[in-house]
């Protein structure tokens, strides 16, 4: 029932609106000091003001740009390296354990090293985003390549395909679900690291914006920034999952 689904969705939106109204009540009746928690009205005003004056808009685009550049770098490097490692049994045996060792390292832990090497620069922020986003991509690609149905490889041998042909015609398409899942994870990581990088290196962006707002006790500006970051996370995840189901539409038709 399509109608029923829409009704439930509408009810769900109402519940969300109810939570926002409750937030408004909290600030109206001063249950929590407005220094810490401004009402949604004031956060919204700050948001509108920031966007109309262009101040917040510039920072927002800066953050999104960093996130996307870092993510694209990470995805490209992750898929290429993953394809190289994943398509050869020998490379997996030699390089795999090192990757397993590096994997649990939090990407933010390399920030001090990155700062020492690259300074508080734009390059540093991008390098950290790319490094952090690389792991989910790399591991997903390696996993996808090693999970390819072995008979497909046999077929490719029987057909005498070259190694590049095997990668592009068999391995990449069949590991697409893993790669797309890795890209989704990697994008989340990229947003987090973009914010961290901006906070630490004071590059102009939403990360530094909310940090400065908190230090100056300008809580409406702070919440406006948090809302924008939430929207960024939500929209980017939605876009990517649409892209994912579009790319994988062949799976449902089976």
């Amino acid at each position, binding site marked *: 029932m399509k109608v029923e689904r829409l009704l*439930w*969705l509408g*009810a*769900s*939106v109402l*519940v*969300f609106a109810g*939570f926002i109204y409750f937030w408004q009540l909290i600030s109206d009746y001063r249950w929590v000091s407005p*220094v*810490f928690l401004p009402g949604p009205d004031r956060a919204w005003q700050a948001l509108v003001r920031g966007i109309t004056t262009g101040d917040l808009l510039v920072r927002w685009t800066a953050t999104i740009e960093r996130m996307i550049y870092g993510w694209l770098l990470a995805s490209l490097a992750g898929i290429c390296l993953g394809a190289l490692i994943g398509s050869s049994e020998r490379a997996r*045996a*030699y*390089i*795999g*354990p*090192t990757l*397993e*060792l*590096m994997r*649990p*390292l*939090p*990407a*933010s*832990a*390399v*920030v*001090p*090293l990155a*700062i*020492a*090497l690259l300074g508080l620069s734009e390059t540093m922020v991008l390098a950290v985003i790319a490094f952090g986003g690389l792991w989910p991509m790399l591991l997903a690609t390696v996993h996808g390549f090693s999970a390819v149905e072995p008979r497909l490889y046999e077929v490719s041998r029987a057909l005498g395909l070259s190694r590049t042909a095997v990668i592009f015609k068999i391995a990449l398409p069949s590991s697409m679900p893993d790669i797309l*899942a890795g890209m989704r*994870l990697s994008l*989340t990581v990229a*947003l*987090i690291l973009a*914010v*961290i990088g901006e*906070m*630490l290196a004071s590059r102009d962006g*939403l*990360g530094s914006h*909310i*940090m400065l*707002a*908190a*230090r100056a*006790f300008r*809580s409406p500006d*702070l*919440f406006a*920034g*948090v809302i924008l*970051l*939430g929207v960024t*996370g*939500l929209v*980017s*995840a939605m876009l990517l999952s649409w892209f994912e189901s579009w790319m994988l539409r062949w799976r449902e038709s089976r």
Partner: protein
Amino acid sequence: MNALMRIDPRGMILPVGLIIVAEAAARLTNLQSDALAPPSDILLSGIKALADGSMLYATWQTLANAFAGLAIGFSLGMALGILMGLFRPLNRLLEVTVEVLRPIPSVALLPVALLVYGFGHRMEFSIVAFATLWPALILTRSAIAGIEPRLLEVSRALQLSLGARIFKIVIPAALPRIFVALRLAVGISLIVAVTVEVTTNPMGLGYKMMEASQGLQPGLALAYLVWVGMLGWAVNGIMVLAQKHLFGAAANVEARL
């Protein structure tokens, strides 16, 4: 996970080789750097920091914050996940709220927590709690949805109360998959705790690393980096072992967010 238990000598060539090359390169070029240090120097700084207890104290701080936050966030998320998994209407009513709040990056709340709590334990574990709540909720909900429906029918036929139904039927049946969620959340809690420390909170491993790096002690900073990696690896290893030990073959489920 087999790679974790069985050591393939071929896999050791690369890391060992890299360490030797790094050492040789540092010695040959007579490295004078504020950012890099030869592996032997890293090892010595690490041993020194371990011996004087500063590294262990920082480890304790980080782990305490990570696990306190995990305890709060995971149990809240699990409780919500169980309720939303059992009661479909509740799940549908909260759908929009969950989907809107979930993608807020946890670090975005860093300044908020800083404003409310100032520096210290509370701001750190509140962020860890937020970060671990969502995977706990989502994965518990899907674990409940994966329970054999006949078990729930049995519980209805026996007219069990809600509490008895949750504790006697639902939780035991969903436990293997909830444990997978816990394993994921433990990793997240450690990562978030270190992130908070690197970024703002002056305590724990992340801060120590930042301090050593800014104090131009690259050997010590890198020793902390290696230590954080080892810690993450050990914690994950313990969780994998516990999972195998506790659930046996039922442990072979994968978490997908």
